């Protein structure tokens, strides 16, 4: 009998059973209370509210949403706004982050301490502080539309936001995009051919230089050409405000500025750590084999640093997506602000709305981490 109790398997089952019963009891208790409380408060349940008219105004939307649309359309507008600010901020944060991280490693003492100063400054202050600071401190202090700061008379910045021109016709840009895709395909084929030839004959091919022209310079030229041949809707001052073009509202500009500069500080640290993780001996060995400094960086440092850099950078990207919800503090119409805020107040269906919002963020997070895992698996360093 006692021996039976000493059996590890039996005890494992016992503890797991106990834990499961305990957890279920707690969940049951909460659900019971919730349904009771909701009945008492006369709260509606179910997801029918999603198809009701929202009647909520969203000042900044790319989806063509109107207050007479459904709440589902409102949610979609919020999702698009969240994705918009996240994508733009991720791109800019990556560029700033890599630059600052590399500068931090600079041999020049002044450059490296300036980069260090930036990193320490940004990382030790709350993000909400930066969001509020950009919105109430910087953008509110901008001039009125009449005294806008203009750039080449096509882009205007004032306290109502950033007015940018929009193309009237997208045909030219479609051609440019197709051309870019074709050039990337050509570059891809070329790289396979070059690698095969190098394996066969040992002859080198200036792949990076060609790639720079094919995937960088030529597409850029195509887009510039498209830009010059299309007619633009340029914002112009009429009365008290700018008409025409597209206005990036100050909420967007403030959130974007805060998110990208803040996350850049964290990315810079990741980049610095990743590059420093490559041992000096590796670099020396590369030089000893007669590789040029550029090729040491390309063939020795980057392939070894990237696997160290990618995982933490992924979590920074995820953080940025989640942090885009800070926009709710300045009423940038993202998911949290329009759905968890406005729609919740309008319908009162807290449980459903919170569940949907959390599900969306979890899906977004899962999607990005799957994507990055896939990338990571492909670029994993193969060791002995």
């Amino acid at each position, binding site marked *: 009998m006692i021996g039976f109790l000493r059996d590890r398997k039996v005890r494992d089952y016992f503890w797991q059973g106990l834990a499961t019963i305990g957890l279920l009891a707690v969940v049951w208790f909460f659900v019971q209370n919730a349904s009771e409380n909701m009945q008492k408060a006369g709260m509606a349940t179910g997801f029918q509210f999603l198809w009701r008219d929202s009647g909520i105004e969203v000042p900044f939307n790319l989806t063509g949403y109107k207050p007479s649309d459904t709440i589902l359309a409102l949610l979609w507008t919020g999702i698009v706004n969240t994705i918009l600010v996240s994508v733009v901020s991720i791109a800019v944060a990556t560029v700033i982050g890599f630059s600052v991280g590399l500068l931090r490693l600079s041999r020049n003492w002044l450059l490296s301490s300036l980069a260090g100063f930036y990193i320490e400054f940004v990382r030790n202050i709350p993000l909400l502080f930066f969001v509020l600071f950009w919105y109430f401190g910087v953008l509110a202090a901008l001039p009125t539309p009449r005294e806008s700061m203009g750039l080449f008379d096509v882009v205007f910045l004032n306290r109502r936001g950033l007015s940018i021109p929009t193309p009237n016709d997208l045909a030219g840009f479609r051609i440019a995009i197709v051309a870019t895709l074709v050039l990337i395909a050509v570059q891809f084929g070329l790289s396979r051919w070059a690698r095969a030839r190098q394996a066969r004959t040992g002859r080198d091919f200036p792949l990076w230089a060609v790639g720079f022209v094919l995937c960088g310079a030529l597409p850029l030229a195509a887009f510039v050409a498209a830009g010059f041949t299309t007619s633009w809707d340029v914002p112009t001052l009429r009365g008290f405000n700018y008409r025409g073009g597209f206005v990036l509202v100050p909420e967007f500009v403030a959130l974007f500025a805060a998110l990208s500069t803040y996350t850049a500080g964290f990315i810079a640290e990741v980049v610095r750590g990743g590059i420093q993780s490559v041992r000096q001996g590796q670099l020396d060995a590369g030089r000893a084999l007669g590789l040029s400094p550029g090729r040491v960086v390309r063939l020795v440092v980057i392939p070894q640093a990237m696997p160290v850099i990618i995982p933490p950078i992924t979590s920074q990207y995820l953080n940025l997506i989640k942090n885009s919800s800070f926009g709710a503090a300045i009423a940038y119409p993202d998911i949290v602000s329009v759905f968890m805020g406005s729609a919740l107040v309008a319908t009162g269906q807290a449980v459903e709305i919170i569940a949907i919002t959390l599900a969306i*963020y979890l899906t977004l997070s899962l999607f990005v981490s799957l994507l990055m895992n896939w990338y990571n698996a492909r670029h994993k360093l193969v060791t002995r």
Partner: protein
Amino acid sequence: MKLNELPRILPPWAETLRQRLFATPLDALATLVCLYIIWRISVPLIEWLLIDATWDGTTREDCRSSGACWVFIRARFGQFMYGQYPLAERWRVDLLGLLIVGAAVALSWRGLPRRKEASILALIVLPPLGVWLLYGGWGLKLVETREWGGLMLTLFLAIYAGLIAVPLGILLALGRRSRLPLIRFASVVFIEFWRGVPIITVIFLASLLLPLIMPTGFNVDRLARAVIGLAFVIAAYMAEAVRGGLQALPDGQAEASQALGLGYWRTMRLIVLPQALRISLPAMTNEFIALFKNTTLVLIVSIFDLLGIAQAALADPAWVGMNMEAYVFAGAIYWFSCFGLSQWSRLKEKRLQTAYGR
């Protein structure tokens, strides 16, 4: 070789300077550009912050110079620290602060007799004592949490959420590495769920759903909801930090302890956790810094912590246009706190490395 072709030897300081700032023409150019930028930014900044600033006075009219108006901070200093906490009761906050600092200083002194027992005692006694001192009751005047605010609220949120998050995080980390699949599964779901959603939604969730899932008539205080919400999220992040330490520890440690006949909990308590926590201390400090910064989000549910008070102060008609002063003051407090914490953890880490001779 002729004598005059010998390289000119610079004095050592100049040689260091040359290598660090002017090694190549490009380097020299970068240095000069940087110096120019620093000069252009720092001169007006210092003028605004210090030289042209107004320090003395009582009202907005005293600020006539072009610099910062620190009179504003002076006039509202009490609010920045205590929010709307009644003036006559503020000594309670100060007393608690003194007690915490005193305990921390005493306990960090290595020569303290019975240091371990004293630490445990402080951890058991201080938190409830703090709630009693701040909230009142039992002979003290009741101060509702909606009157709390400012820096004291920020510290309260961070400390109390941290007190829940650290033990919970350790348990979750152990759960995630447990032999029992169900426990492991539950821990993974808990950790990944809270890590996958934004903190702002968690604070919303806590403030809207906690009253809903409690029995009727059982009221959870607004501030307690925020503490619980923050604590759950940080616990999930803490768990990952602790897991890093657990993974870094060689399996042999736990195996040796089991060979000596210690059970699971004693193995963890006496052998594994003391070593693992030491390794994960820097990561845990980072999570605590993140928690400290994220307490600002309670602004969303109208709880006014330091940043919230600064934000609210901007709406005061008597002090229009003091945005920069308020932000600089609040930002500086956050910066020094977080920077101090991270330096402390770096120091600890270094001491540890020398202790292990690594």
